[in-house]
């Protein structure tokens, strides 16, 4: 039967997250009672009625609770963020890989390697032929497909090394363009390199040797599916003479994140499927990147109020879509199974 002293201490322990109490509460209570009780029934009865956790004891539990709720090492919150980050990195690399597939298709079409595929417009073929930079562009684009596939298959180290190498030519091209004064827009190309190249490569450190591998099959299937879903509508707009409706790349990112949020919203709001919080958190991360990209590239259109309005509309739509999954993202911690915080020997 629990004593008053025990009940008072357990009340303080309610500050701690549920997953932590499940693992450690009993032992903490036992240690706390050990620190008070003497083994003499009369004395212990008096202590139990009169004593309670002091200010320093309460402060130590409160400090532990703050660390655990904020997500210290080994906590589920940290675990959830790491998992969401890995998925977001895979999603960004998927975009790179889809762009790479587009380059491959372009090369196949321009060199007439597959007879039934229509040749691209002659102007495009002329503009994209020859030159070291163009060759480097082709090579890097195809390398992103390899990076995405190797990462999805769990070959983290290979993917990390290739990705670190793949962002170098783009940086060199930017520096060259900056030096020669032929930069097409003031910030856009640099933001692309920082947000879409550099940040994901740095974030690939989340794929460490202890990181659980992602299920490769859905990610690998997402590559052809992503190409068809993205380039199908784009090519249709071009073919029907509606190229004016084509979004720029940052606008396309906002639209893709918005569509993903809308597709995920029913699951996120139903809370039926375990683990949905992680996808919501992933989408919030992706929205942060796409939003930052969209805001900075507004400067490319300072002389065109119409395009500014279109860009702001894309941003607004994405924010609205993200709002649908944001509450679920906040619950990602609860939806994530805790990593084993307790030694296996306990169960032996």
């Amino acid at each position, binding site marked *: 039967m629990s004593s008053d002293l025990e009940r008072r201490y357990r009340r303080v322990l309610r500050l701690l997250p549920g997953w932590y109490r499940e693992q450690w509460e009993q032992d903490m209570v036992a240690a706390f009672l050990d620190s008070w009780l003497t083994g003499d029934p009369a004395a212990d009865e008096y202590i139990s009625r009169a004593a309670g956790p002091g200010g320093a004891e309460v402060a130590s539990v409160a400090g532990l609770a703050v660390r655990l709720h904020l997500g210290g090492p080994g906590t589920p919150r940290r675990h959830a963020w790491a998992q969401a980050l890995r998925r977001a990195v895979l999603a960004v690399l998927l975009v790179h890989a889809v762009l790479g597939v587009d380059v491959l298709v372009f090369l196949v079409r321009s060199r007439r390697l597959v007879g039934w595929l229509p040749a691209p417009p002659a102007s495009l073929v002329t503009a994209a032929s020859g030159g070291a930079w163009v060759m480097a562009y082709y090579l890097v684009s195809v390398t992103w497909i390899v990076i995405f596939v190797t990462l999805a298959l769990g070959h983290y180290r290979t993917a990390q090394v290739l990705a670190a190498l793949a962002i170098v030519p783009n940086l060199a091209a930017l520096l060259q363009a900056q030096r020669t004064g032929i930069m097409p827009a003031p910030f856009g190309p640099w933001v692309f390199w920082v947000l879409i190249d550099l940040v994901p490569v740095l974030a690939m450190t989340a794929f460490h040797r202890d990181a659980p591998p992602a299920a490769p099959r859905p990610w690998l299937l997402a590559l052809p599916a992503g190409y068809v879903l993205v380039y199908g509508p784009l090519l249709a707009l071009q073919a029907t003479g509606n190229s004016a409706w084509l979004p720029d790349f940052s606008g396309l990112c906002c639209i893709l994140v918005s569509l993903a949020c809308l597709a995920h919203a029913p699951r996120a709001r139903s809370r039926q499927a375990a683990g949905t919080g992680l996808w919501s958190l992933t989408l919030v991360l992706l929205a942060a990147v796409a939003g930052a990209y969209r805001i900075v590239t507004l400067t490319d259109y300072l002389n065109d109020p119409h395009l500014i309005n279109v860009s702001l509309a894309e941003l607004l739509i994405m924010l609205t879509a993200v709002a649908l999954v944001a509450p679920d993202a906040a619950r990602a911690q609860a939806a994530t199974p805790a990593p084993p915080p*307790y030694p296996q020997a306990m169960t032996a």
Partner: protein
Amino acid sequence: MTGQAFFVLTALAAGPRHGYGIVGEVAELSHGRVRLKIGGLYGVLERLAAEGLIEADREEAHDGRLRRYYRLTRDGRGALAEEAELRAATARIVRARLGRLSPEAAG
């Protein structure tokens, strides 16, 4: 490695201890300078367990309560030995410098 973690590992180096046993041992080892509160102790234990430096040894009933005993893992022994070496080397440097600066050494 924090001072508290160092003392907890040192306490466990002598053999398995339960939670309150560690508190007592740490107070003794530190000559009363480190008095762990239970919340602080379990913050340290949780981190050490997550890093694989300690593990559960056994549970024993005592006055109707289950006491859980903890022990060092092989990694825990290694980490403690490394930390002890580092602290000893630092202490040697400190003693040498203080020796050079003391009036006795100067005079």
